[in-house]
């Protein structure tokens, strides 16, 4: 009897110790995530400023070339020889400037999404646009999808109300869900991310063009639970997986923000 009690006490102490270790570990992870998020937000901001400066400089070159065309013998005309024979054809210059500015726009769109994604990691429970968060996830996933030659499509819910939950949790749940599906896909396959609002919830549906015969082992938490399922449930949402004849559908549902928020 005494031995049993002592055994129970030892086990209890050990469980408390393990729980404490997990909490410390979790605290450290959260701190790491916050530092990483702040660093990433700052880097994204710096990159955005550099892109803006490149954009303005390229635009300024275009302005000067335009000036040259308008006032050939003005102050800038001294850089060019007079007469039609020596007239500088500016078309290629404008072409290059246009290319630079287009690349800046592409770069800045991706960078802005990365910055927003990083910024969301700092927040806990908040109201945000589910559509925007999905666009950020898609951008983060595009490179990996391209390497695997998987085509990602997205159909967003037009005018969808805001979602109210933990933003990093939302992103992590969708990210894990997509990663799980992606693992089962092969070159030339397609993955469609759709968002819509039904039954007062923001639904994210992931449809793969292939039936995943041997589903990839999902990432699991310390207690062995499916990670994305655990996160979605923690956020007050739901997740369904429907393997079909020729495809595989995963649906995640998240709570909407109360009206007026």
């Amino acid at each position, binding site marked *: 009897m005494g031995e049993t009690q002592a055994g129970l006490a030892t086990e209890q102490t050990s469980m408390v110790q393990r729980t404490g270790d997990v909490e410390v570990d979790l605290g450290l992870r959260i701190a790491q995530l916050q530092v990483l998020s702040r660093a990433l937000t700052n880097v994204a*901001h710096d990159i*955005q400023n550099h*892109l*803006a400066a*490149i*954009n303005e400089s390229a635009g*300024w070159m275009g302005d000067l070339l335009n000036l040259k065309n308008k006032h050939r013998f003005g102050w800038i005309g001294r850089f060019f020889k007079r007469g039609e024979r020596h007239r500088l054809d500016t078309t290629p210059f404008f072409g290059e400037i246009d290319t630079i500015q287009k690349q800046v726009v592409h770069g800045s769109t991706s960078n*802005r999404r990365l910055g927003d994604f990083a910024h969301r990691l700092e927040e806990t429970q908040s109201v945000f646009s589910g559509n925007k968060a999905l666009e950020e996830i898609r951008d983060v996933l595009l490179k990996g999808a391209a390497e695997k030659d998987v085509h990602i499509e997205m159909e967003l819910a037009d005018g969808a109300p805001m979602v109210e939950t933990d933003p990093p949790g939302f992103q992590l749940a969708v990210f894990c869900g997509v990663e799980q599906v992606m693992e089962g896909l092969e070159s030339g396959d397609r993955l469609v991310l759709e968002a819509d609002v039904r039954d007062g919830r923001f639904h994210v549906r992931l449809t793969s063009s292939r039936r995943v015969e041997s589903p990839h082992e999902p990432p699991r938490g310390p207690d062995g639970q499916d990670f994305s399922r655990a996160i979605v449930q923690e956020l007050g949402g739901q997740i369904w997986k429907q393997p079909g004849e020729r495809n595989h559908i995963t649906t995640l549902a998240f709570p909407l923000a109360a009206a007026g928020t």
Partner: protein
Amino acid sequence: MKVLLVDDEIDFVTTLSNRLGLRGIETDVVHDGQEALDYVKDQEPDVIVLDLKMPGMYGMEVLRRLSKTNPDIQVVILTGHGTDRDEEEAQRLKAFDYLRKPTDIDKLADRIRGAYRFKLEKTMAAAAFAEAGEFDMAKDIAKDAERLKTAGEIFKDEDKDKT
């Protein structure tokens, strides 16, 4: 029209000032929030193009102070850092517009002109009512920027149609 550009990215803001100059918008430039507030004390600009993340004082704090001391100055936020929350806060503090870097120069020039036009309309309408002896109405107009801001919104929609 007197326009002030506030941005700590010197190369960027210098080029921006040159480009706006070519479009008929002459500008003065300062590089931080405190400088902007000092400038406003000496010479009140019609429109301020304001960055958010700057050394010393965050741009939103500049906007907050201006909304109390100089509510007639129209502020266009131009930032590379903005978050959804910043955008909401700028809206609450009655910033005329919120743009993200990099932006199209002609779009920015249109927004600056729109902000100036909005300020003029607001001032003129208030003056007209005051002249007609409608002092309460004049006071309302001076206070209630949102009512006349509709004019600014229409202006913006016209721009969107163009692009």
